[in-house]
Every structure is written in C-alpha cells, then in structure tokens.
C-alpha cells in the first residue's frame, strides 16, 4: 500500500500501470486524460466509443476490475494498477465470445456504434446474474442507448447468450 500522497500536476505526463485485456502496459498519461481517450488514442483500442461524454449513453462501457464502468468519466491517472476489459478482449483466439456470437445470430447489430458498449454491459450482467429474465436484462441495460434497433433483438441476443454460457459451464 502506498502511503504517500500522489500528486499529478496539470500538463505533465505521469506513468501508470494498466492491464488491458490481459496485457500489461506502462503508460504516460495526463491528469485529465479519460480512460476512454487513453484506450482509443494511446492503445488504439477504438472499439470503445465516445457517444456523449457525460455518462448518458453508455457506448463507452468497459469493465474495470470486473465492474461495468463508463470510461468517458474515468480518469486514467487514477487507474494505476487497474485491470480493464474492452470489447477487443472478448474473443478467444479466432472465436467470437458467446455474447458476440448471439449478437450476430439475432440480428442485434445495425449501425454497430452502440454494440461494443452493449456487449460489455451484457457481459457484466451475465457475470452477476447468469440466468436473467427479460425484465432483468432490460432493467440492467437501461443506460445503454441504441438508436437503430428498438432493443428487441439486443434483448433476444442477451437471452440467447445467457443460455449459451450456462450450457458451456454445465459441460
């Protein structure tokens, strides 16, 4: 445990240690860099999207230490030592993650811009609640906005992904 006060001066880059999708990085960031911008600009992980910047659309959702968070309202400088999962970290080799697979199968993708955030939210949901009802899915996803689909096929995909993951675990 550090016992010293950490001071990160404005306009100066400081090093942080970040684990992203299992890979370890030493990064130099400004005190006012958001996690979203560091992922997108420094690590070229552009799957995580800027939709509003104010926490109202959830297109920038990532997992930080296992929890669903908004990368647009997270300070990279304060993330020293954290482990982040983004949509790019879901595939297993060349295989899609079951949630991604369900999105493809159920036509849950249209323009695709909200898709990474949606998928990351569903990942957290299914980790917390492996067998959610449709009502629970809808309640959990209430912050993730989509302008294309009316959500129906996204909810279908989440239900189907839950089934797939439960089956995979029971095998």
């Amino acid at each position, binding site marked *: 445990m*550090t016992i010293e006060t*950490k001071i*990160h001066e404005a306009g100066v880059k400081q090093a942080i240690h970040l684990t992203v999708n299992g890979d370890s990085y030493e990064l130099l960031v400004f005190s006012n860099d958001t996690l979203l911008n560091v992922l997108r600009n420094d690590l070229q992980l552009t799957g995580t999207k800027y939709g509003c*910047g104010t926490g109202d659309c959830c297109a920038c959702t990532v997992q930080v230490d296992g929890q669903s968070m908004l990368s647009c*309202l997270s300070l990279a400088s*304060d993330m020293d030592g954290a482990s982040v999962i983004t949509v790019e970290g879901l595939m297993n080799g060349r295989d899609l993650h079951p949630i991604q697979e369900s999105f493809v199968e159920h036509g849950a993708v249209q323009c695709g811009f909200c898709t990474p955030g949606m998928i990351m939210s569903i990942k957290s949901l299914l980790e917390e609640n492996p067998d959610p009802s449709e009502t629970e899915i809808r309640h959990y996803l209430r912050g993730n906005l989509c302008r294309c689909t009316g959500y129906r096929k996204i909810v279908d995909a989440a239900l189907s992904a839950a089934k797939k993951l439960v089956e995979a675990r029971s095998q």
Partner: protein
Amino acid sequence: MSTRVLPEFTLIVPPTLDAAIAILGERPEQARILAGGTDMLVEMKCSDRGAKTLVKIGRLSELNFITYNPARGLTMGALTTIRAIADSPAMKQSYSLMLDAARDFANIQIMNMGTIGGNVCNASPAGDFLPCLLAMNAEVVLRSSAEPRIVKLSEFFIGPRKSQIRPGEIVVAITAPELSTLHSSAFVRFTRTAEDLAKVSAAVVLSIDDGKFSDIRIALGSVAPTPIRVLEAEDFLKNQEVTDAVISKAAKIIQAAIKPISDFRSTAEYRTDITGVAFKQAVAIALARRTIQ
C-alpha cells in the same frame, strides 16, 4: 465545450482521509473533492466552473462502508456506491426507501461509480436519495482540519446545487437514526423514461400505532430549489386514522405547500398534481410493506 476532453487540472490522490483533509486545509479555495466523478467530471466537461485542483478520494476504503445496528442506526461512508446501497442487506431490512431509489438510479454503470456522498454534495433538487435521506432524518458528517461538524440534512441544502459545505470540508459519512420495526418506508418518483431525472419524487417514512399515524415524515424532490420536508402535512397526519380520506387530505396539503416550476421535463401544474399522487403511492407502498412485516 467538448465532452471528449477534460480541462486541465492537478490531480491529488491522498492515501488516507487525514491526508485528504490536510491537503484541503492547505488550499481550501482551489481544491475540490472528486469522489465517483459522475457529476463533477460532467460539470467540468460542460462548463467553465472546473477547479484547478481535484482531490480524488474515490479509492479511500475507510469511507466506503455501510454499518447498521438497530440501536445506533445507519452510517454510510461517503464513498458508498449507489450499487452498494442497492445490494445492501441493511437497506433491505430497514430502509426500503433507499432501495427504491437505488434500484432505478440512473444506470448500472453510474450506480457502480457514483457515491452517496457525491449525491449529497451535488445538492441537486432532483437527486433521488435526498428526499429519502430527509425523511430518514439523516445527518451529514463533515471533517476538516478544524473540529468535525454534524449538519442535519434538513439544514444542509441552501439552494440548487448549493450546500452548507465550507471550504476545506469533506463529507465523510451520512448517518440516519434507527427505524423501529414498526416503521416502514417507500420512495416513488415520476420520470419521462426509465433513465431520467425525476419530474417529482416523494419519500415517506411512517409508523402506525393503533390504526393511527404515530410517526410520519414526508420529503419531496424536484418541487422546490432544494429537496424539502412537508411539515404541515406531517403535523396534520400525526395521530390521524389511516384512511384514504385522511391520506387524500394530506396530499392536498402537500400540493398547496409546494410551488414547483415548469421546465422541459414537466409543467408546474402537472408537478403539483402528481406530487399528491407520488405521496399517496409512497404511503400505499409503505403501508403494504408494513403489513408484510
């Protein structure tokens, strides 16, 4: 202003509460406390009001706790997340209204990030927890390099987004007295969509003895510059029989006591109308909960 980037600031991350207090004491005017960031970073992106120095306390585990015991009541560390409140057995057991507010709060991501201390400090007239805490007779525990202060929540808010916090002070905890097993509570809000700020909200804490209201506390959100208690209605209800007519009369008293505004979320007239409904619904839910107990 772009919401892609934040203005520049110096970020100070103290390892302990004492260190945080010391830092604030050194520069009380320039430094602002950053907890979950879900309100402050938005404000900094959207306005020129940003501070030059942010003291990030979000990871101080000493402020992240919920304790409850029937004798001493509830204490929530300022950094208790909304998610932790939603998942808390103590809330489920004794403060159902807090659970009502937490369950539908903003979205899951904000619930994971946002803190109760932040919600209180933000002092929004539409903040969902504020009517709940008012109805719970909550108090705010403040620390600074001077003596700790305890401020009643009913005296804490002085205007929209304005509170009694003095420069150099940190909200460290929110406390509320115990509620007896005779007490029950509920929180109801009206919104445009499932993720929205409240058009109006109502929180009630009540207890019934011998078919009469032995205790009743009513607090409202989004109907005044700050969240408010409606003491007239509480006084009216005390020792009254629990009947629909009495509750409706109380709703009328509430409606007469408020002066909400029209904005793009709703109209003053509608807010007045449904504040009565929100109150009645909250009472009905609280009464039903009491029966279940």
